[in-house]
C-alpha cells in the first residue's frame, strides 16, 4: 500500500513539476505547481510528518501560490515570447542532466550505507514534539526567523510603493 502511494505521489509530482517549467502561460505553471506541492504533502504524510504536511498545504499550496496567482491576475500576465537560442536551451538541459547524473551516482554509491526503515516511536512528528524542540533548542533561530518575516513584510511594502509618491507618502 505504502509502495503504491509513494509511486503515485512521486510520478504525479515529477509530471506536474515538468509541466510547471514547460507550460507557456504563467497561470498554468502556477496551477501545476499547486499539484506538485500537494503531492509532496502526501509524501510527508507517508514519511510520518503530519505537521509538516499540514504547513506545506497551508503555507505553500495556500499562501505562496495564492500570492503568485494574485500577482499574475493583478498584472494580467500573458505568455511572453521566449525566444531562446537552441544552443542555450540545450546547454540548460545538459547542465540540469549533469546535476541529476552526479547526484544519482553519488546516491547509488552510498545507497547500501543509508539507514533503513525502523519502527518509529508513537510521538514521532507530532506537533508537541516539534514545538518542544522549537521552543527550547532552536528558540534563538525561531526568534531570528520572526524578525526575518517582519523584514520581508516591510521590504515588500516599501518595494511596491508608487515611485512618484515623493517624500510625503501621498498614497
Amino acid at each position, binding site marked *: 500500500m505504502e*509502495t503504491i502511494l509513494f509511486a503515485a505521489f512521486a510520478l504525479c509530482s515529477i509530471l506536474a513539476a515538468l509541466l510547471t517549467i514547460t507550460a507557456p502561460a504563467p497561470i498554468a*505553471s502556477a496551477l501545476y505547481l499547486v499539484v506538485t506541492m500537494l503531492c*509532496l504533502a502526501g509524501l510527508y504524510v507517508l514519511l510520518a510528518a503530519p505537521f509538516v504536511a499540514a504547513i506545506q498545504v497551508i503555507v505553500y499550496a495556500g499562501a505562496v501560490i495564492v500570492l503568485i496567482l494574485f500577482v499574475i491576475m493583478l498584472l494580467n500576465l500573458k505568455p511572453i515570447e521566449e525566444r531562446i537560442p537552441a544552443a*542555450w536551451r540545450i546547454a540548460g538541459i545538459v547542465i*540540469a542532466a549533469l546535476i541529476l547524473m552526479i547526484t544519482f551516482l553519488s546516491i547509488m554509491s552510498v545507497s547500501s550505507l543509508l*539507514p533503513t526503515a525502523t519502527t518509529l516511536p508513537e510521538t*514521532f512528528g507530532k506537533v508537541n514534539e516539534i514545538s518542544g524542540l522549537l521552543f527550547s533548542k532552536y528558540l534563538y533561530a525561531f526568534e531570528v526567523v520572526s524578525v526575518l*518575516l517582519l523584514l520581508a513584510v516591510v521590504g515588500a511594502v516599501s518595494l511596491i510603493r508608487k515611485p512618484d509618491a515623493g517624500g510625503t507618502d501621498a498614497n
Partner: protein
Amino acid sequence: MQIELTHYLLLTAVLFSIGVMGVLTRKNLIIILMSVELMLNAVNLTFVAVARFTADITGQVLVFFTMCVAAAEVAVGLAILISIWRHRGTMHIDSVKLLKW
C-alpha cells in the same frame, strides 16, 4: 518492494534538477521564481525523508525554518517583480540585466 531512503533521495534529485532546468531554460521572471520554489521543495523533502529514516525529529524542525525563509523570499521576490513590471512593462528576464556585465 519496500520504499527506502534511496528512493526518496532519487526523487528529490529529480525534482531539484527539474527546478534547475526551469531556471536555466525559461525567460519569464515569474516562472523562474516558481522553479526556485520547486528546488526549495525538493530540499524540504530531503530533510523530511532523512528525518524519518534516522528517526531524528530535527529535520522536520529545519523544514519549518526553510518554509519561513521561502515565504519571505516569495513576498520580496514578487514585490520586486511588480516593481519591474511598473518600470519596464515586461516580465522578460532580459529587461533586468543592469548588473549583468
